[in-house]
């Protein structure tokens, strides 16, 4: 079973961790469906 391909994905990245767009690139390369992607900032 594939966790990523069977689900619709929401990405909550972090400016000082892994930003949303970096996660998006990984997901797009395997054809996963991204519903929404954002990046949080605590500083």
């Amino acid at each position, binding site marked *: 079973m594939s966790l990523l391909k069977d689900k619709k994905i929401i*990405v909550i990245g*972090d400016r*000082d961790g892994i930003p949303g767009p970096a*996660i998006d690139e*990984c997901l797009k390369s395997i054809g996963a469906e991204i*519903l929404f992607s954002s990046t949080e900032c605590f500083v």
Partner: protein
Amino acid sequence: MDLENQKRVKELAELHGPENILVILGAAEGEAAGIAAETVTAGDPTYAGPLTGVQLGLSVYHVCEDAIKSELDPTVYDEQIGMMEMVLDVDDIVNEMTAIREQYSKY
């Protein structure tokens, strides 16, 4: 979690069904990852956002967890995340995420 992000998560879960949603986090450390995970499962622990008291129970992982990483293209992962993964305390993140999932995830 940012209030606007909570609102989007809530709306999308309602629209597509919580069982069909997977949330992927990029938090910088374990506790922050845990709080974000708690927000999309048991509700906003800071009582500030639209997910306060809303127990979505969504499936949630940090992008550096094996369950996610193993499905991604290793070359792209290495290019986008590899070096930051070395900087992060992944064990701490995995522990926090696992604890929250076991307690609150419904899917």
